[in-house]
């Protein structure tokens, strides 16, 4: 299992998770950990098992095999309720009660989570997430971005140390998505362990400390830079004298570069600059996901 990079130790540990629905294997042998103050992005195509993994980690469904520990406590049928209290889950759809005011939405969840002083806690979160002026509005009148903020507030009501976010910026406009990413970064700075499921590679790269690529099995889990490095370079860009367009030469390995330069020099070309170009995260992702059946 890959160790967490930040913080004082893993808050969330999953080892060899497996889950089937009938004959279909949704998640197979997935090991993952998230440390305090760390963000791990979970990437994968539709149907890759991201939501099933999230649901197992959130204590919503039990794994068919493997184990999960949250804050050192193993999740079992008996401790699943405790696990759900230790985790804040942002579901893919906000799932608010649209006929009810924002405040009542949050107050009900605060009581379901057994929060002490639920009304005061709700007010604190309303202020923190800049929702105080919309607290008495019915949830159905809010924009998608505001609904997502209410859903985040709901996930944080019981002050969980582990936060699972299922596609937090899906469908948001750029400004709302930026606010959401800033909020997630803020949660990391508070020392929370955060797992974010996303389809947005740029967001994953910008936001996370590590990226886990899932397609039923865990294909890779490392920092974006390490993933790109491991994938190697795919081409070299050579700027030569007398040519306005640089040469774009595909390569398989950096060791090919001296031979390429030597050949160009032998051809009498004046070389200005040679730049090995790393594979983009998108290429790395597509190579990994595409290579798997």
């Amino acid at each position, binding site marked *: 299992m890959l160790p967490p990079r930040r913080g004082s130790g893993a808050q969330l540990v999953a080892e060899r998770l497996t889950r089937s629905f009938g004959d279909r294997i949704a998640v197979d042998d997935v090991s993952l950990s998230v440390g305090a103050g760390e963000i791990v992005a979970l990437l994968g195509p539709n149907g890759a098992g991201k939501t099933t993994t999230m649901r197992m980690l959130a204590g*919503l*469904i039990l794994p068919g095999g493997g184990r999960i520990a949250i804050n050192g406590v193993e999740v079992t049928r008996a401790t699943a309720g405790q696990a759900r209290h230790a985790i804040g889950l942002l579901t893919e759809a906000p799932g608010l*009660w649209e006929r009810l005011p924002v405040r009542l939405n949050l107050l*009900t969840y605060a009581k379901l989570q057994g929060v002490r002083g639920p009304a005061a806690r709700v007010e604190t979160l309303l202020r923190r997430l800049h929702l105080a002026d919309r607290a008495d509005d019915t949830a159905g009148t809010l924009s998608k971005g505001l609904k997502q903020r209410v*859903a985040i507030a709901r996930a944080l009501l019981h002050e969980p140390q582990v936060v699972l976010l299922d596609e937090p910026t899906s469908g948001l406009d750029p400004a709302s998505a930026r606010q959401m990413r800033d909020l997630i970064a803020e949660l990391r700075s508070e020392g929370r362990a955060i797992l974010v499921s996303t389809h947005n590679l740029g967001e994953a790269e910008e936001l996370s400390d590590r990226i886990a690529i899932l397609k039923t099995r865990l294909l890779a889990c490392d920092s974006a830079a390490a993933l790109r490095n491991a994938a190697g370079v795919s081409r070299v860009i050579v700027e030569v004298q007398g040519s306005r367009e640089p040469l774009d030469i595909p390569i398989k390995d950096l060791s090919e570069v001296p031979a390429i330069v030597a050949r160009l020099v032998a051809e009498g070309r004046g070389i200005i600059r040679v730049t090995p170009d790393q594979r983009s995260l998108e290429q790395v992702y597509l190579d990994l996901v595409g290579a798997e059946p």
Partner: protein
Amino acid sequence: MTWYRIAALARKDAAELLRNPGAILPAILMVFASLFPAFLVIVVTPRLIGERLEESEFSEQAANAAASLPELAGLAGDGLVQAYMFHQFSVLLLLVPIVGAMALATHAVIGEKQAKALEPILATPITTIELLVAKTLAPFLFALALSWTAVLLYLLGAWLFGEPGVWQAVAGGRLVVMFVVVGPLVELAALLLSVIVSSRASDPRSAQQISALLILPVTAVFIAQLMGALILSVAMLLAAALGALLINLGLLAVGVQVFHRETILTRWT
């Protein structure tokens, strides 16, 4: 089972129902719909056609029933027939808790499905049995309040429009057994059936259509009474209550199966 979680969710459901006219209007209209036939036949029609009830075909039925219904003793003429008729029509009021429970419960469950709110609820420490109880509690209390309101309006009408002594004859042990024992049990059966059907249905109306099967037995009893073929005694009502209790136990067993966390997450949403 933790009652504060159940209470929190039930209070939320009540608040939602009060803001949802589509859910509560059918239940409220049922109160008036169940009262209307009795007053039409017992009060309005005789006045319109100028015929006293004691001169109608129901007079003989009432005289026969007086032997098996002790609360009719002491009444005669129009008063006897009115009291008998109010007795016979009172079974229609059982439709209020049934229709009310169905209308409210289907919205309480399908509303959560449509709002995609079940997953966030299940992500809290609430247990599935707590969720089942919470989802039935608000509709149960609401429909029960409506059915008792209907009974009070019924008695008020019997007092206002009936002959002296009629409303006291109607407000006897039989009515108490019907609406304190049988009514809540039948209502609970309607609730559980609605919740079970709602788990498979995607809109409240289709769920209500299947749950409406419960209306049939009540309607059959009413028609049998109207034809003079049946007079519901307290013993019959207690037997019906026992039957409803057994049906409830069966439905509860199915309901608990349907309310498995994983079933809700993987099949309901």
